[in-house]
């Protein structure tokens, strides 16, 4: 396999695994959080604001780590 083909193959593999993980994450985690966040947004706007920013930062750091690990693992396995 040429270097370009291998790079594209790695990228597609990473995106597919990432998409599968993210779909499960969205279906499970966000499904359970929606009701709680809706209640907070109407009754406790200050707590909602804090929860919103913390959730976003946690998700960004988490997904960044997942993406980095995927790149590392797929490239290591397939050479």
């Amino acid at each position: 396999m040429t270097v370009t083909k291998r790079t594209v193959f790695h990228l597609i593999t990473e995106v597919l695994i990432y998409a599968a993980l993210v779909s499960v994450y969205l279906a499970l985690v966000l499904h359970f959080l929606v009701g709680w966040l809706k209640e907070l947004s109407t009754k406790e706007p200050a707590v909602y604001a804090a929860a919103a920013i913390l959730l976003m930062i946690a998700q960004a750091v988490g997904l960044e780590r997942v993406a980095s690990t995927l790149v590392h693992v797929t490239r290591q396995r397939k050479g």
Partner: protein
Amino acid sequence: MYFPISGVHLDPIYLVLIGFVIGVLGGFFGVGGSFLTAPALFAAGLPMNYVVGTDLAHIVGKSIVAARTHRVLGNIDMKLAAIMVIGTIGGSEAGVQAIEVLKKGSHVELVVGTVSIVVFTGIALFCAWESWTALRLNQSKDQHRDPTQNRKQDVTAIDGFAKALQRIKLAPQVSLPHSGIESISFWAILFVSFIGGIFSGFLGGGAGYIRMPSMVYLLGIPTHIAVGTDLFEIIISASYGTIRHAMNGNVDIVIALVMQTGAALGARIGANLTQYFTGPRIRLAFAPLPLLGAIVIAQKLLTSHHP
């Protein structure tokens, strides 16, 4: 999928795809991408006040991912970012207050939309003209250039503004060795970031569409460092804007979290791509993006009814 916080139905795949595209562009150009996200969310049916706040929340997540990659590439001037944060937060607060005043008069969509069109069109035309001129200058210099020269060494067609601003000796003066600037007034940096902050709070997004070109043309920062530093600064300023808008009921965090899943991947790709392009090429590629945003907003305003 129903999003109960804002009370709208949106396709989550559409949101992830917007996030991905904006992530690539944001990582590459150092902007929040609100010139595209805002019209895309507005066109999908999200009310404008939610568009502004939700977009800011999504930008926080995307910028964390992109800034981390730029930090590895050496594209962040931490000293510059620290000063800019002060001005941006002050400006952002002024912008948020302006939105609240407009909400009371129920003209928010018309005013924010019209201001966006004017600002986006102006930036697009200026960047296109300047970067095209800089590329032509670059081509004539290329004949005498060392082929091993660094891509990050920048050329701009207009360096008069930056030189004039650097000549203002209003204490305290600061040096930015990472950006190659010997001495510049603290107040000049604060002024540029304050203006960016006003746009961030008023129009939503991180206002990178104003700040990135301002850093290059007004402060004289090399494009690659302007991109990375802007992204780092956007994390702080957009976080502040998100909290302020969330407290005022303008953020649907669930929509932002769905978008960010696509943006996280796109931002990594975009940030890594910058190492293959020169400054003028990055700016030329940037030019049509704000114009596209202006066209979408204009189309939406023309087809909706206002009192």
